Structure formats: C-alpha cells, structure tokens
C-alpha cells in the first residue's frame, strides 16, 4: 500500500463577484495538500477554511453531473475527478484555478452557460420522429446500431470542450464541439428522422462544422472521452453522403484535396486556393502570394512536383472513392 504524502501548494484563485467588484482579482491560498485529494477537495477547503463566500458549482462528486468544471493552469478539468497528485506532477506546486471561461464569469468559478445551452438547443438535440402512439411492438435498437453513436451519448454537458475551443473564443456564432457531438448523436440514431434538418443547421458558414480549426482541444479535454472532433468529421461526411454540402469555399477546400491528389499525388497548393476561392475570390490572396513568390515559396504550375508511381495513386482514388460532390 502506498502511503499518503503531503506537499505545500500555493493556489492563485480567480475571485470575482460581478455584482460588487469592478475587476476580478487573483487571491493566494497556501495549504498542505495530501496525495489523496482531488481538485474539488481544494475548492471545498478554500470555502470552509479561508473564505465562506467562495462560490463554485458542485453536485454529484462522481463525474456525471458535469457541474464542477474549472481550469487549472489552463487545463480544463472536472474538479471531482482530477487528482491533485497528477496536477502537481504536471504543473509543479504553484497552481492557478480559474473558471472555464473568464469572460463569462458570474461569481468566482461560476460561469453563465447560456451560450452553451443556446447552441446546444440550436442543433435540435432530441429525437425527431413520427411516433406511433399505439405501436404493435417495441422499437428495438440492436447493439450494432447503438455502437454507431460512437459514445456521443456519454456527453454530460459539462462545457469543458465548449470553453476550451479556440474557435468559440474568437467567434461568438460558432456552435462548438459539444453541440456538434449532440447533433451527431441524434443523426446517428436509427430511430431519428431529423438528419437533414440538423445537417442544414450544422453546415451554416460562420457557425457550423466548417469553421472548426482542427486543434483537437475538445478531444483532449473531454472527461468522458466523447471525442467531439471525431463527430465533427462524421458530420462533414454526412453532409456529402446526404447531398447537403453547400457549394462554398470550405466545402470546395475539402474536395480540392481529392482533385489534386488524383492529378499529382501531392497537393497543388496554389490550385487548391484557386479552386476553393474561385477565380475572383482568389484575388484577395495575391498580396501574400507575391511576397511568397519573391522568396521562392511558390511553385509554378509547370514545375509542380508529382509522386512516383502516380498511376497507383490514380487507380486507388478511382476504386476507393466513396462519395461524389
């Protein structure tokens, strides 16, 4: 049996009450932390041993209610699940505890999640189906059909992926990874009939899946291993599968890779931009292109390198393609 060890840790904790404070501040608390504690124990001790006005959300203490999400040194965690030992090993003995979103902080760790719920609602996260009120038999779902959800149904709406997403940080319209995972969860449900409606919502430019920056922050932070970016890719695939992909710059950008590979094996960078943007849209890239050309960073079309054994690649593209645009 391993023995319980103790370390002195300094916590810098985000304190802010929107009703009384002009600006937020970071307050320091030093305490002895044992190897058995989790982050939620620290939040409790700050409230019980230092300042009874310290506010945070907590409920189940079993990693299922999703209430206690916070950030420690920028890492999004469920406070009740995250062991202090792991955090100390990763970041050392000076730790900063903050709410998941500073700009949405209401009081200390508590944030206003209205944006999260609005975006969640927007993707219609419920079963859309004409229900026979007097069915003759149960509507059975086989284990294989249930597996198609790819565990998207394990989401506990803690908001960690949403508030770790850089695209949301910069773009208030972006639905975000949790909403997309929810959209996929119902699109993948064999009983559901709302796939096309949902695809039209999540394919909106500026808000939908095409504005994902592909950073994998959502996959990394999710405490339930929902892997939202995998679901974002699935929604992209469904857009083509159901003929719902709009003919715009983002969609052509994805399709352009297939064109280029078929022709050269490698990507023709210049042609990809031209095909994606169109002959007019590409003009806005000319100033940067000129700077790059002067530094020998643009390959002209007649010098475009090709993969060896290009015939092999062409054949594989021909026989392995599963969708058309």
């Amino acid at each position, binding site marked *: 049996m391993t023995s319980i060890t103790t370390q002195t840790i300094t916590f810098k904790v985000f304190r802010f009450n929107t009703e009384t404070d002009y600006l937020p501040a970071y307050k320091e608390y030093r305490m002895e932390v044992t190897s058995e504690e989790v982050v939620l124990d620290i939040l409790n001790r700050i409230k019980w041993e230092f300042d009874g006005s310290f506010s945070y959300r907590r409920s189940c203490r079993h990693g299922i209610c999703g209430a206690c999400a916070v950030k420690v040194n920028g*890492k999004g965690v469920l406070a009740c699940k995250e062991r202090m030992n792991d955090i100390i090993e990763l970041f050392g003995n000076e730790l900063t505890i903050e709410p998941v979103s500073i700009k949405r902080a209401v009081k200390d760790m508590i944030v206003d999640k209205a944006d999260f719920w609005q975006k969640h609602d927007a993707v219609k996260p419920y079963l859309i189906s004409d229900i026979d009120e007097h069915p003759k038999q149960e509507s059975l779902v086989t284990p294989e059909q249930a597996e198609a959800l790819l565990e998207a149904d394990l989401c506990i709406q803690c908001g960690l992926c949403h508030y770790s997403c850089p695209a949301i940080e910069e773009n208030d319209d972006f639905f975000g990874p949790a909403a997309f995972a929810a959209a996929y969860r119902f699109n993948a449900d064999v009983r559901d009939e709302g796939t096309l409606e949902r695809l039209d919502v999540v394919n909106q430019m500026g808000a939908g899946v095409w504005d994902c920056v592909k950073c994998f922050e959502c*996959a990394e932070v999710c405490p339930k291993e929902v892997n939202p970016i995998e679901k974002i890719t699935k929604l992209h695939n469904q857009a083509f599968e159901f003929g719902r992909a709009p003919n715009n710059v983002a969609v052509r950008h994805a399709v352009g890779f297939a064109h280029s590979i078929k022709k050269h094996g490698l990507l023709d960078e210049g042609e990809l931009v031209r095909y994606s943007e169109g002959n007019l849209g590409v003009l806005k890239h000319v100033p940067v292109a000129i700077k790059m050309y002067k*530094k020998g960073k643009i390959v002209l079309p007649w010098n475009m390198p090709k*993969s060896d054994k290009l015939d092999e690649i062409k054949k594989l593209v021909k026989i392995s393609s599963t969708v058309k645009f």
Partner: protein
Amino acid sequence: MEKLKYALFTGCTAKESTPEQLMSTYAVADKLGIELIELTEASCCGASHLQDYDDFLSLVLNARNICYAESRGLTMVTICNTCQLNTAMTKHRLDNNESLKARVNEKLAEVGLEYKGDSEITHFLYAIIDDFGLDKIKEMVVKPLSQFNIAPFYGCHNIRPSELAGGDNPYNPTSLDDLIIACGGENVDYEEKNKCCGFHAELQSPNTAARLTGKALMGALDQNADWMVTPCPLCHLKLDTQYDHASHAVGRDVKMPVLHMQQMLGLALGCTVDELGLKHHVSDVTFI
C-alpha cells in the same frame, strides 16, 4: 551507436511553399549522421481536410504511404505535424480494427500492396530527442544560440490528441523547450505555445484564423522572444507569411522571425545560412 536510418515522409509543403524546411532537414540529418530515405512514392496525407470529404479514401492513401516505409523495413519520420497526425491516426485505426484493415487492404491489393502495421511513425523532433538524444546534441553544438530568447510554438497535431502524439503532455509540453536549451538558447515561456495557429481555418474562417495567429505572435513578443521556432511547416506558413492579417486582427504589429526547428538546430550545429534556406522567409531573419 548504430547509424539511425528512417523513411522520410516529406509531405507536400516541404516540396512547395517551405523548401527551406526540406533543405534544413537534410542539412541537419547530414550533421548528425542520420540517414533519410525519401518516400518518393508518397501522396498527400489529406491534411485533415480530405477525410472530411472522403474518410475511406483518406485511409487508403495514408495506408499506402505507410506501406512504402514498411517495404523498406524502416520507421517513418515526418516533418509536418499534420502529416504526423494523419498518418499516426490511420495506423491507430487500422491496427485496432481488423475489418477496416481488411477493407483497406482489399483496395491496396489491387495495386500489389498490403498494409501490415509493422512500421512506427514518428515526428523528426521526437526522433532527434528520443532516438538520437539531447546529450549528444549538446556535445555537437558549435555555435550555441546563447544570445537569443527563443519562443517554442508546438503546433496542435504533434501534441494532441495525446494518445497518438509523441509523448509530450499537451498542457505542458517540453520537447521543443528542451531542444532550444540543448542548442544553447533561452526558452521563452508564454501562454500560446501549445495553442492553435489557425492554419486549417485560413480560407473558411479567416477572422478566427488571423486572431489565433496574432495572439500566438503577440504572446511570444510580450515575453521578450527574439524569434519563434516550430516543428510544423503549416504553423510556419501561418506565422511567417500572414503577419499582416494577424497584426490587423489584434491591432498591433506582431511581425516576428519564425524558424523551423531544423533551422534552429542547424544554426547551433554550424550549418550555413544557405544550407538552411534562410533566404526563403517572408518575415525577415537577417538577424542571424
């Protein structure tokens, strides 16, 4: 030590918009005595976009690239974060799903290939650190970069998702910092070093992309970095060539020299400016 030998998957960018990255990769490999056999048959990895259109096609093409490392009996080394992730993700999916692997191999058989899964895939950064060793690098440094504050920019696809990455913790990566220190430089700590540069949303979401680039450069500048270094040519393109948009997006001039990890190492090992292709930068690097 036995001479290190790898199958090099160059990716497309090193052949086109970042020729300096390929030049400096070979220059550094030469200095270190690492043998690189270029996978001239390889196709584009799809850059995280092809799989949005046709996931199965992307798997087949990436599996084919791995086949050519396997047929040479070598570990595949990548020099682009996104190539690394796409290839490693393909390997992970095929190695853990027999029926998917069989479907992919059915297609590959038509061109006389078979994906087996017996080649490892690693980024050149980790090959240098884990296989070659930082202690040996330190011994070989002839021009320590001691007068420079250098900001590491890791790039997403070499650190996330962590189960497919090379061993760094994505919330506190250290590999590139360690390489800077081994080269004699001062590593700069700043908040954006493990964040997204915005490259993959450049065309679709230009405002988001420019803000992310601007914040990364701003973060490094505010911690007194002289220049930035990255293991990813896509991050490099974004940070080196897009400073105008980035500056506009964050409301201040954020232009800063950005070097490839190979160029930084090459400078410390005594490679020449020409060997490292330092004339191919848009943001001035004449400080070298």
